[in-house]
């Protein structure tokens, strides 16, 4: 982190010496730094949102592949027979890789969070669960449901895909939204820097005239402005990103159940992604200021 700060602030120190020709500007300059910092701060969250919902979509998508559950809520005496029948049906169903009935201890573990560890399952009409792991393109849920209906009247097929698919879609949309937000922030940054640069160029019309008169090339003049705005924007963005990352770091971390709100953040190598924001901000400022400067200079004799 210190390395990043140093690489941003290093050229800034030199800036004071080499770019004396552009007068020190007051409030406008501070606004550029402030706006860049704010925008970068927001970009960190947009990025975190995008990455988190991407992860979520992926995880839910993976779990989709794991398929479904059959719940047999037959009366206790018929339960074993119906379970057998259901397993037989599943064996002959295309797309089912594997199916097995959960044993009593597994079911107990599933219910433990609600009823505590001392529950005697046999005293309750707990349905039998059958876990289905699908393969290939999955199985035909509607067909399976029809067969179960005919042969195992008390079986209910819980197709995970059915309720997860819209969630995965929503997470994917959210990811797109985050990405679009990052891009939009980039566009706003470009617009903001262009306006600020144009204002600075207009304010310094006399400076530019004098410089042209004494033989300064367009590139020399433009560079003085470009350097200043690039460094300011990048420095502002760096501060915004640092604050943003600290705040994201302080968000409560994701638990096992991982609602997407608590999962908002970066994981592992993703922590390097926000560090690209100041670089990108600098690049955007560099291009925007250069463009504005060239346009203004064309008007000066």
């Amino acid at each position, binding site marked *: 982190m210190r390395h990043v700060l140093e690489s941003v602030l290093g050229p800034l120190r030199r800036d004071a010496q080499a770019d*004396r*020709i552009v*007068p*020190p500007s007051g409030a406008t300059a501070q606004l550029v730094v402030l706006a860049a910092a704010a925008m970068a701060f927001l970009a960190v969250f947009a990025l975190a949102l995008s990455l988190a919902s991407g992860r979520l979509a992926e995880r839910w998508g993976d779990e989709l592949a794991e398929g479904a559950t059959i719940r047999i809520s037959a009366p206790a005496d018929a339960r074993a027979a119906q379970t057998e029948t259901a397993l037989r049906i599943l064996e002959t169903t295309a797309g089912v890789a594997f199916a097995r009935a959960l044993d009593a201890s597994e079911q107990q573990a599933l219910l433990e969070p609600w009823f505590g560890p001392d529950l005697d399952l046999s005293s309750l009409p707990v349905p039998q669960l059958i876990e289905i792991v699908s393969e290939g393109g999955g199985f035909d849920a509607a067909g399976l449901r029809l067969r179960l209906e005919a042969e195992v009247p008390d079986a209910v097929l819980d197709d995970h895909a059915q309720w997860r698919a819209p969630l995965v879609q929503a997470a994917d949309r959210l990811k797109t939204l985050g990405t679009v937000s990052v891009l939009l922030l980039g566009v706003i940054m470009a617009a903001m820097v262009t306006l600020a640069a144009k204002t600075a160029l207009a304010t310094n019309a*006399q*400076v530019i*005239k*004098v*410089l*042209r*008169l*004494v*033989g*300064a*090339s*367009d*590139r*020399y003049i433009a560079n003085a402005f470009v350097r200043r705005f690039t460094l300011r924007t990048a420095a502002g963005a760096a501060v915004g990103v640092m604050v943003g990352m600290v705040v994201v770091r302080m968000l409560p971390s994701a638990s096992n159940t991982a609602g997407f709100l608590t999962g908002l953040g970066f994981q592992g190598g993703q922590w390097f992604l926000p560090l690209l924001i100041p670089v990108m901000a600098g690049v955007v400022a560099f291009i925007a200021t250069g463009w504005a400067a060239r346009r203004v*200079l064309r008007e000066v*004799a």
Partner: protein
Amino acid sequence: MIELNNVAYSYNGGALLSDISISLAPGSFHFLTGPSGAGKTTLLKLCYGALRPTAGRVAVFGKDLSALSRDEIAGLRRRMGVVHQDCQFLDHLNVSENIALPLDVSGRAIDDAEALEDLSELMAWVGLTHRAEAFPPELSGGERQRAALARGVIMSPDLLIADEPTGNVDWEMSQRLLRLLVELNKMGKTILIATHDLSLIRAAKAQVQARVLRIANNSIQLAGADL
């Protein structure tokens, strides 16, 4: 040094200058005179490429200005000193930094001892040594003119173009500035000065062989010795 061939310049449809043909030889000293608004400043601007003629051809140092890119014009201006009527400076830099500005923008080092010595010599020559640390807005009219002149010659240009260099100063100061210009001319520089101050021209003629170009009725003529 400067050559104008059938140069015309129109401004908002009206012809300000037409059919101007002059040629300034290296080492010559020329005054450009004429009534206010006759186009003296415009003619000078044509000479340093701040304006482009609407017809004809302007050549400086043997180069056709209309054929030059913006960067080449910038390069050309490093070989000539231009002193504006309203001397403009970078107000946030002090006088000595302003005078050294042409060195700065042309990428020449101003840190080495030799350059610093040249700079202080030049400052002494225009009598601004004691004002080196002052900022341009603090200068008097005469000091501004002298600072502009110093900035105009720091690159040791072959050509100096000055627009009313004695416009804002009293007689004594104008004589002092004139002596500086004459001295430059004696060092071999080509001088072109626009002025409406006839007594200045008379004073110059006593010191140097100066020619007078007069603009009137859109055209230019070499004035006689009867001035």
